[in-house]
């Protein structure tokens, strides 16, 4: 190595020193130590401890609470990722337009993502209370359902009649023709208003809310209702971030491909599935990975729920680890074993993504 190179390497080490020390203590050492603890019976208060081999891992899989945490974490991860990806992609597709004021809307949608999870969770717990706003809203939808359904029926009918009429006249219009839909909307609103004013269609009496979101012991699709509440909350707050990533990806797709598809007679829906979805595959991949890793770490929402929901119905891996360290005598050994499983799950996802990512590029 040349002398100048050696000096440069020394300077690089100097520049990197604070970061490397931090990384060494709070990541490398931390990881190795956690791995070590997971084979011992160390507690937070006890001074000495012994190596117990795989006893902690065996004990974990005999603990019903750990099994609950593991299944919750995995189902939470899969459900939230699926919901987020679909919703974020469809929202990004709507927002990917060159229209005036679109930046303003993008900014507005991002607000739930920048606010602190603690504040948002407090608001969400209020939202999910028995007489909170969610039940109020559901009750309101139920009471105006007759009016809403009338409107939808008139709208669909008006659209069908118009499309049929235009086609008879020889104009090849799509079922979703936006200009005709605007007229249908006006007709629907006017007729519904008239029927409501005449008293033909009236809202029903609003029912008091019955559904409990947080203290419910029922399950839906095998997942406890309180966890569904957290799923809804988490999806709501993270969609905007993923949507922005999708938007950035959408804007990298050349316009000419769409134009070529349009000349070939592809409808907007066909364009979406045969141009947008394949071109967006790398970004989708990234979004799914980010979402899988992010949802596995979910902690704040569960911790803030506190006694608002029974712990066994919302506990996830991250909270299981925390709870074991900071309750009772502080079972560090057991908690470390659970932490290692959490880390292993994360590694598995990253490796899976790497493996699939390479084959992706080969095609």
């Amino acid at each position, binding site marked *: 190595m040349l002398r100048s190179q050696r000096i440069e390497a020394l300077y690089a080490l100097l520049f990197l020193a604070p*970061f490397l020390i931090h990384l060494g203590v709070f990541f490398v050492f931390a990881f190795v130590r*956690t791995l070590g603890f997971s084979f011992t019976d160390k507690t937070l208060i006890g001074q000495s401890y012994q190596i117990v081999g795989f006893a902690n891992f065996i004990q974990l899989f005999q603990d019903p609470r750990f099994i609950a945490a593991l299944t919750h974490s995995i189902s939470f991860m899969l459900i939230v990722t699926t919901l987020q990806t679909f919703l974020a992609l469809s929202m990004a597709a709507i927002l990917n337009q060159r*229209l005036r004021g679109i930046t303003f809307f993008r900014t*507005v949608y991002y607000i739930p993502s920048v606010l602190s999870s603690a504040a948002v969770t407090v608001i969400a717990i209020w939202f999910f209370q028995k007489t909170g706003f969610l039940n109020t809203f559901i009750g309101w939808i139920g009471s105006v359902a007759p009016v809403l359904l009338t409107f939808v029926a008139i709208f669909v009918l008006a659209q069908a009649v118009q499309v049929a009429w235009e086609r008879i006249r020889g104009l090849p219009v799509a079922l979703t023709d936006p*200009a005709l839909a605007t007229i249908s909307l006006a007709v629907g609103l006017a007729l519904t208003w008239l029927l409501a004013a005449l008293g033909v269609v009236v809202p029903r009496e609003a029912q008091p809310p019955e559904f409990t979101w947080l203290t419910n012991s029922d399950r839906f699709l095998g997942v406890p209702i309180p966890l569904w509440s957290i799923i809804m909350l988490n999806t709501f707050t993270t969609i905007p971030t993923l949507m922005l990533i999708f938007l950035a990806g959408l804007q990298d797709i050349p316009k000419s491909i769409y134009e070529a598809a349009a000349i070939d007679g592809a409808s907007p829906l066909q364009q979406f599935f045969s141009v947008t979805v394949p071109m967006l595959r790398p970004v989708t991949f990234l979004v799914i990975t980010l979402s899988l890793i992010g949802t596995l770490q979910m902690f704040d929402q569960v*911790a803030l729920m506190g006694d608002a929901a029974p712990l066994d119905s919302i506990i996830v891996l991250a909270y299981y680890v925390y709870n074991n360290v900071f309750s009772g005598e502080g079972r560090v050994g057991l908690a470390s074993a659970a932490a290692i499983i959490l880390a292993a799950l994360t590694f598995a996802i990253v490796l899976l993504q790497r493996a699939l990512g390479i084959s992706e590029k080969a095609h």
Partner: protein
Amino acid sequence: MAAQVMKPGRKLDERYLARQRWARAAWVYGAMLALAVFFIGPFYVAYLGSLKDNPLEWPFRYSFAQTQPKNWAAAWRLGQLGASNPWTGGFAPGANIPFQVSYFVEDGQEPQTPVVTVPTRRAGAGLGAIFDEVQAAQYARVSEVQEVGRRSAVVGGQPGQIVTYSFTIAYEGQGPRAPRLPLDIEAPRGQVYYSATLDPNRLERRGRVASWDSAAPGLLGYAFRNYVRVFNEARDPNTGASFFLRWTLNTFLVCVAVVLTTLLFASLAGYALARMYFPGKNYLFAFVVFTMTVPAQAIFISNYLVLRDLGLLSSLWGMVVWSAVGAGAVFIMKQFFESIPREIEEAALIDGASPITTFFRIIIPMATPALGALTILTFQGMWNEFFKAAVVLSGQQGNYTLPLGLSFFRNAYGVAGDWGLMLASAFLSMIPIIILFVVFQRYFVEGVSTSALKG
């Protein structure tokens, strides 16, 4: 398909296409508006809830006493009369407050004078209850209640009359200033509350008993009652200092310290990774990227013990040390330094300047945009950091940061169902981030999409 089956008819003319474009734009705007309601609506209704006396009232009302300008004006005036303080009100020597209340009495019943009392009432159900507060009841003298008018009216389909009574509340003699002037008015059976100078905070027993948290509240004390309570009621039992102010200050200190350390350490490390040669550089960078995926929840146990051994638990310094520099920040700075041209620094290096001088004199001034973005992202991340605070700070309430404080409030007030205070504190804790977001929204939106795509 359908088009081919049909006879060749009219062509798609220009006007038709233009109409379609306009209609499509209108539908897109409609969809965007609906999405805006979806993302902002929940916060709006929760904000309305935070203004209410009972945020869980059923049915939910969008318009209530605290949103009515009539009550704002009255609260302002009453605050001025009570303690010459139109903002937060009070009850001070020399106060003489006129008050009117009207009742609806059905036909066939003789109206009777209601009973007015200034009760002794402790503040709140939670932390505030342990503090002794000057009670207005000790000094208030309520004048005789007089009937000032009657008019016939139909209320709820029932014919009857509305009877208005008037009285005054005076501060007798000299004494300390009371922060609130609680008021209860109880009417005999059959009389239903109709209106008053200031709408009451609670109506009980079918509108017979109306009670006010304070009859001289001031504008903020009435319209933002729960927000004022966050500062006044939640106080440290030992020192009497407001928890919320303390937590805000703590969060600011942690954020500023972490932003400073991150800016310095991350730009140093990012520069070394982007520009300097040393063996194993690519492996190191791959490792740094890898560490970004490992959740903090998986490795916090050792970090907790390290901070315990250093004596940094329950201390803000613990938060700062643990968060001093993150792999993500180094990554952002490395990406930025790779994007600037090499020529400038090479010129400086040829002139014989050491890498350290070059870095601080030439590189850092050029990196202002990246440092600005990093400042904002780091500040926002630390302001919202809950997990590290829950690990490091638990126990000593005076040292909490805002997210942990909110969780403490949730446990302290959740049992009593005091949602007004919890919602108000959640909104108050968001204000700095909302301001930051409004001013620097570009950094937030661009930071997310570009850094994620490159990663």
